[in-house]
């Protein structure tokens, strides 16, 4: 943790922007206004250079070579694991399994834990605002085990409707798997309360932190969640970086999802024995350079201070909500910026999100349009798609103004 964090302070966004080379790009001569960080974030020079530096100076396979490059590569890779563990305040590096990202991590949970421990009639509790990556893996596990999926519904405001939680979360519930922040609505659910309620009925809790981890401080021990999945590419890190935190006893009990080199202890023709955690989950050559890059991303984020990151996004989200509504947009998800993160879904008048995205692109503004891998949310709100603007450390209030001004172009053409 950077010592700066003890003193609340705000981001020097101009300085931050200078660290992101892609922000120099222009579209039709207009500066790029990138409002799709919920899909993937951009990468600061420090991260890009960490990856290049690994390949140019320390490249080797990890945990294999008895020569100096092998030792450097192992140290860099395991060093990144230590940084991730500290970032989430995990009790130790062995509780961090590296994966390609949230999707792979949730599949590891649904397969490695779910296929082992769920049986017919057992229930998995999800929510109606889950990303497909926290739904489809469970459907696949349900096909194999006969377990049943249930969903916590949403209110019209796009927050979890916990009125009937007591009937949804019962002794039949073996796991609650819930997003830390909805990518389609921005909603941040009351995680601590959910963890407590789940533990009270003997269920474990997995958190999809794809959106939460990049944007606020996450302390897995304070949260007391059993498993937590995250994607490096959404938190300034390389694509193909990320992982799964798990309590040691939960990871210990899980089956690996992949067999192969380096996760084994002994291999015989008809059976094998596996290594201890986290290695039993890490078969074959891993995302070495990428996790090293993730380590650099974490250094960068801690340099900014996660509290400052969250404050900055709260400010910009609150500003964006106001300006969008003023401009005539319909916003989905909670209006209170304290209940949500910086992913803002909306419809601008009757302009279809696809058309809106194309028109905004001509003005240099990059937004996402679609179902955001959350078709249950789209059905809940009766729309095939929404437009979504999402913010991160490099976005400014002025960029929100450019977005709102660009909406006028759409109005000219369509309304």
């Amino acid at each position, binding site marked *: 943790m950077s010592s700066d964090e003890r003193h609340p302070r705000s981001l020097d966004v101009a300085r931050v922007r200078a660290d992101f080379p892609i922000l120099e790009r222009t579209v*039709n001569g207009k500066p790029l206004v990138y409002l799709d960080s919920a899909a993937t974030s951009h990468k600061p020079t420090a991260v890009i250079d960490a990856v290049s530096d690994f390949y140019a100076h320390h490249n080797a396979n990890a945990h294999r070579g008895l020569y100096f490059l092998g030792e450097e590569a192992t140290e860099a890779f395991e060093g990144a694991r230590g940084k991730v563990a500290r970032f989430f305040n995990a009790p130790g590096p062995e509780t961090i399994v590296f994966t390609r990202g949230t999707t792979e991590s949730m599949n590891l949970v649904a397969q490695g834990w779910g296929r082992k421990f769920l049986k017919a009639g057992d229930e998995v509790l999800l929510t109606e605002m889950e990303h497909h990556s926290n739904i*489809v893996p469970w*459907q*696949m596990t349900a*096909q194999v085990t006969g377990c049943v999926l249930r969903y916590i519904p949403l209110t019209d405001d796009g927050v979890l409707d916990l009125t009937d939680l007591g009937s949804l979360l019962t002794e039949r519930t073996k796991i609650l798997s819930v997003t830390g922040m909805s990518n389609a609505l921005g909603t941040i659910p009351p995680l601590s309360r959910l963890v407590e309620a789940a533990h009270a009925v003997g269920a474990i809790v997995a958190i999809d932190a794809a959106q939460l981890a990049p944007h606020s401080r996450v302390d897995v021990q304070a949260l007391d969640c059993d498993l937590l999945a995250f994607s490096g590419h959404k938190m300034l890190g390389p694509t193909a970086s990320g992982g799964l935190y798990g309590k040691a006893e939960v990871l210990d009990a899980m089956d690996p999802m992949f067999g192969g080199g380096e996760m084994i202890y002994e291999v015989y023709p008809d059976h094998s024995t596996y290594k201890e955690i986290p290695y039993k989950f890490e078969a074959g050559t891993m995302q070495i350079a990428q996790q090293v890059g993730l380590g650099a991303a974490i250094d960068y984020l801690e340099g900014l201070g996660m509290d400052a990151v969250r404050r900055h996004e709260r400010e910009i989200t609150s500003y964006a909500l106001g300006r969008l509504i003023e401009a005539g947009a319909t916003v989905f998800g909670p209006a209170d910026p304290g209940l949500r993160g910086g992913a803002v879904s909306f419809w601008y008048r009757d302009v*279809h*999100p*696809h*058309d809106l995205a*194309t*028109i905004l692109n*001509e003005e240099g503004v990059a937004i996402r*349009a*679609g*179902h955001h891998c959350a*078709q249950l949310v*789209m059905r809940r709100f009766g729309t*095939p*798609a929404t437009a979504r603007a999402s913010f991160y450390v490099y976005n400014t209030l002025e960029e929100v103004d450019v977005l709102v001004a660009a909406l006028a*172009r759409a109005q000219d*053409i*369509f309304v």
Partner: protein
Amino acid sequence: MALDDIYKEVILDHYKSPRNKRELPGAELSCTRNNPLCGDEITVFVHQQDGRVAGVSFQGAGCSISQSSASMMTEAVQGRSLAEALSLASDFRGMMAGEVDPDEEEFGDLIALKGVVKYPIRIKCAVLAWDVLQEALQGAGEATASAPHEA
């Protein structure tokens, strides 16, 4: 101005006043499909008679490109033989792939969609209705399932 390439008058006209947008009672062929990128959904109804498209309509919701393409399509294939309709579908996809130089007479209003080629992801919007038409014609009645792979 680049945007004019894609949001031409004729496209906006078909979008705001779509032709043949209704159910077609008695249609022997119909098919529903969506664009997985955005969830837009289109159903095409065809009434065939003597190997010809005797009636055609569509329903659904979507962006200006997918809706106007569907609307223009119904006008373009009305009265043609099934083989001609399929061949037009294939030419249209060819134009969208930048491979076919459209024949003005054959294409009519459809030629306005040529500008979409410059927006690769929107191409899926433009061809959606044509994919559905093709499945409806080929499936000869049974192709009402919307999903290629049932999980």
